[in-house]
């Protein structure tokens, strides 16, 4: 059990949840959040947004029933956390582009933050696309070399793919597929973080199976980050 420090509305139906404690995890990994004792049964997989010395933060959208219940919680309320789970983004070098759409932005924050600190990384350009509004305006510039965003259009169009050594992408499938295609055309590896419904979160139940070029993989354990080419039929 963990105690909520804050759960702030930062955009239309979008919340930033902060929980005190010492938490582990690397960029691209996720936690399973159980929002109530009894109902609903299953935990929700939510990416690490930020980890500091004494807190962990999640950026999430209140879409279905579980996240709606979560969005009504406030300081002092209990919540259950399990994690970190999944592989996270691989370690890379050179010039990196981070491309996020919608809530796909969430895992890119800690990712950018940590990449920026690495000597082997020369550039971290961040490209975010939102449908309605840019959330957490002030934060994104701090964790990127350059920050570009787009409201209502296709953020993938903004990315000068050939400028980069590696691209990390998270968001709607169409977007990630597009990035993968563009990456392939330019010889740039594209890593995508994909979503799947999850029950156990630890690789035992096979509800999150995805078909890859190398056979079935578990999104919760072998992913959520995969090489785009292994996932999408191009």
């Amino acid at each position, binding site marked *: 059990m963990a105690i909520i420090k804050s759960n702030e509305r930062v955009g239309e139906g979008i919340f930033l949840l902060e929980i005190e404690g010492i938490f582990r995890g690397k960029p691209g990994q996720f936690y399973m959040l*159980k929002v109530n004792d*009894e*109902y*609903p*049964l*299953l*935990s929700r997989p939510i990416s690490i947004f930020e980890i500091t010395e004494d807190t962990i933060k999640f950026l999430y959208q209140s879409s279905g029933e*579980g996240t709606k219940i979560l969005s009504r919680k406030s300081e002092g309320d209990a919540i259950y956390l*399990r994690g970190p789970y999944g592989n996270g983004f691989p370690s890379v070098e050179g010039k990196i582009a981070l491309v996020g759409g919608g809530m796909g932005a969430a895992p890119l924050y800690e990712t950018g933050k940590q990449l920026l600190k690495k000597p082997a990384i020369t550039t971290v350009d961040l490209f975010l696309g939102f449908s309605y509004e840019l959330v957490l305006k002030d934060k994104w510039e701090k964790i990127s070399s350059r920050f570009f965003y787009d409201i209502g259009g296709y953020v993938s169009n903004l990315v000068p793919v050939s400028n980069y050594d590696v691209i990390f992408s998270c968001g709607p499938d169409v977007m990630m597929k597009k990035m993968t295609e563009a990456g392939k055309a330019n010889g740039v590896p594209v890593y995508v973080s994909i979503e799947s*419904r*999850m*029950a*156990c*979160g*630890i*690789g*035992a*139940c*096979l*509800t*999150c*199976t995805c*078909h890859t070029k190398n056979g*079935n993989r578990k999104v919760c*354990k072998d992913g959520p980050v995969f090489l785009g080419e292994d996932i999408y039929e191009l």
Partner: protein
Amino acid sequence: MSCNLRVKFNHMEFKNPIVAASGTFGFGEEYNEVYEVETLGGICSKGLTLNAKEGNSGIRLWETPMGILNSIGMENPGVKEFVRKELPKMKKYNTRIIANVGGATEEEYLTIIEELNDTDLDMIELNISCPNVKEGCMAFGIHEKSAANIVKQVKRICRHPLVVKLTPNAENIVKVAASCEAAGADGISLINTFKAMAVDIEKRKAVFENVYAGLSGPAIKPIALQMVHEVSKAVSIPVIGMGGIMNWKDAVEFIMAGAHLVQIGTVNFVNPEAGKEIVLGLQNYMEKEGIKSIDEIRGIV
């Protein structure tokens, strides 16, 4: 501690009555990182088919009020790979290992059983109850005749104790249980998931590619308990009860209704430490109530 949790299942002893249910616990490995899985009385493997199976495509999970619908479709590495790779790892845990066996045809069942005959498994759970594959499996468990027939064939060659896992979709689950007993089954386990469905009203389509999926979890517990109660009274072989068990109290309900062992499935997803907690909770309960052996309370309802 004067109470003990041991249970005799025919001639085989289980250290306690809590067993991980097939398909919800993998082959134990992942949960062993959460707690020592040998805390459990036993572990059922994921349902095994002859050849590796990719499982179903499309969405495989949907949450319902206090239940989950799954449409995994028996994704598994196939029995040979199980014997080669998974079983040796499972056997390292000091607990009973049960192989759950599914098949599309009688022949497939028999070949799987043969593959397992010379292994040091503790028990086989014959799955004639999975609603998520298009052919076979649950089809064998609907009628008492087809159930009895497959059990008879399997018993003829099977060298391990054989428990038959029944479906709540059986036309008459009590008759199916009785006919399995008559055909030589060493025990009955019930229930597998209910055939059920969900509609995505936005897409105006069934949620699952197979349209129907399997319902499990606390939602079904009252029905599962009723079936376990009725079947336990009707057969004299031991019964493994399951369906929606979430905590030690639920486990006690099933035991009081007549179950020798209970299996825990969906709860592993809700709380990965549930297995350990349920064993401890049960022990605690027995100590407090001065129950020396589970025999004292089994079937008293």
